[in-house]
């Protein structure tokens, strides 16, 4: 069965790759214009969002965001809202002009994720909660024998919230094989590397021991992301799937990447040109 979004689907990897560049540029410009937004947290998950919304993975209808048969996407790491808002505007959920009003008085959204925005399922910003909501939604789908999927995108920083692991136990116990959990493993929190702060590794083993099927990929390689997501609908396992997408926080902008100081900030002053130049240069690599 083809998704409602088939008209938007890009099948060739070079097209998807080019699309990631466009999305990155729009995220950066949106945040520069607003003077705020979590740029680096957004950049790390661009390939995942592009694969889901433009790679033909998810079923959705931008003209009818509440379409009952849609796949649900829950952004648990709500600070990456610019990445999702740009993706949703790109997919046609609302006019792209809305991005110019990001975090402005006349706009419809701000820094953290807001459920009233067309295409957004939940409010997020306080971490660790979206995963549980997604699990509840997945259980409801199984109970009602509906065949849509529920995708949850988690940050690795929010894995420190204990309730994440309550939900992980729950999802495996209830065999939520319609739940696809993607962890944006950028190794960085607000102030430090996860492995300095408090070790998350061996992370794949942790998820496996909780009862998940685990795939580890380079989350900034659109080819690998597509390969991991392509067959989620035909998966036969009873276990929920966790995709550890290893990424770079700030991917595409060398001057901001992998630097804790850039958490939750948009470039200002001279840094604006540096960031733009970095991003343009990354497209040529």
């Amino acid at each position, binding site marked *: 069965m083809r998704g409602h979004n088939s008209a938007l689907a890009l099948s060739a990897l070079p097209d998807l790759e080019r699309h990631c560049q466009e999305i990155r540029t729009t995220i950066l410009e949106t945040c520069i214009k607003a003077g705020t937004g979590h740029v680096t947290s957004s950049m790390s998950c661009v390939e995942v969002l592009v694969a889901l919304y433009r790679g033909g993975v998810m079923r959705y209808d931008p003209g009818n965001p509440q379409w009952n048969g849609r796949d649900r996407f829950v952004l648990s790491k709500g600070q990456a809202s610019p990445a999702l808002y740009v993706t949703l505007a790109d997919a046609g959920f609302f006019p792209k002009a809305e991005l110019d009003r990001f975090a402005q008085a006349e706009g419809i959204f701000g820094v953290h994720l807001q459920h009233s925005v067309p295409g957004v399922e939940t409010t997020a910003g*306080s971490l660790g909660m979206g995963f*549980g*909501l997604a699990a*509840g939604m997945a259980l409801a789908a199984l109970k009602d024998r509906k065949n849509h999927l529920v995708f949850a995108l988690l940050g690795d920083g929010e894995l420190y919230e204990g309730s994440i692991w309550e*939900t992980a136990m*729950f999802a495996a116990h209830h065999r939520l094989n319609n739940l696809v959990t993607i962890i944006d493993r950028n190794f960085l929190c607000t102030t430090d590397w996860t492995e300095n702060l408090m070790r998350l590794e061996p992370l794949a083993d942790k998820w496996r021991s909780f009862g998940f099927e685990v795939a580890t990929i380079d989350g900034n390689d659109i080819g690998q992301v597509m390969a991991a997501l392509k067959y989620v609908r035909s998966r036969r396992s009873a276990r929920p799937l966790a995709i550890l997408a290893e990424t770079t926080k700030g991917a595409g902008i060398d001057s901001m990447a992998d630097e804790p100081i850039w958490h939750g900030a948009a470039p200002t002053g001279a840094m604006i040109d540096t960031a733009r130049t970095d991003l343009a240069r990354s497209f040529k690599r």
Partner: protein
Amino acid sequence: MSNLSQRDAFWTRVYEMARENRDVIVISADMGAPALDAIRRDLSAQFLNLGIAEQNAVVVGSGLALEGKTVFIYAIAPFVTLRCLEQIRVQNAMMKIPLTLVGVGAGFGYADSGPTHHMLEDLAVLRAFPAIEIDSISDGVMARAVAERSIKERRINYVRLDRQTLPDLYQPGQDFDDGLAVLRPSECGVALIGTGVMTHQALAVADEIAKKGGPKLGVIDLYRLPVNGQALVQAVKGLKRVATIEEHFLPGGLGSAVVEALSDRNAGVAVSRFGLPAEKGYCYQYGGREALRGWYGVSLPQLVEGVRRLL
């Protein structure tokens, strides 16, 4: 159907309605009850024991509710409110996902279990949030009616059940639309306002005072928060004073809510508050509920004495 425990009355009604409505889901944080066992046995697809993990219960329950399920979450009162408070704030108060939190053991319901199990702050904490209603249950008839309303209206509510089996105050068929009920009219210009188990305590205080030849005090059962201010003003019209009686810390509790409602409406009625002084702190005392009340100053004889001084 008289004098069932609130818990049994509540879950029996949920069970009856869940049989007819497959979208009703009951989540238990490893809590049992005879009527819950019936749901687990007869309606197993509608029952989830998520273990002692209240944060997960609220997010998973909210996810189910987002997809159209009517969800109840059951645990001991402090755990289903305070342990998962931020989940409630974001999912329910903020996103307005309908859900019914059911906490058993209001006040000193688990008297001898110690202060971890006493529920002395729930009214103050939960009434701070928009969109959440608190149903503070005073008898089995009300418990049953609230169960029914929770399913029919799919609102966001916290049902505060007493653990003790208390005599029924209401007749079956009573409507609970107003948020409060005048159980006894005042013949002396003074009325007592209670909630939950303390409505029974208020009745006992009024009885004691009348027995000793004192005047006939009014008694009001305030069973829902936020306070229905209009109904309260109507109920205290012509009175010179009301005294609130609660098994809850005084800051932010029933008395505070009554003071706010009357003051905001310039009702011109004085309010005296009887409850647990926060300065006393938590209570590591045993020997039953009335003994704990005595430690804080709200045992029956202490209340009788305190109220008499107001007359």
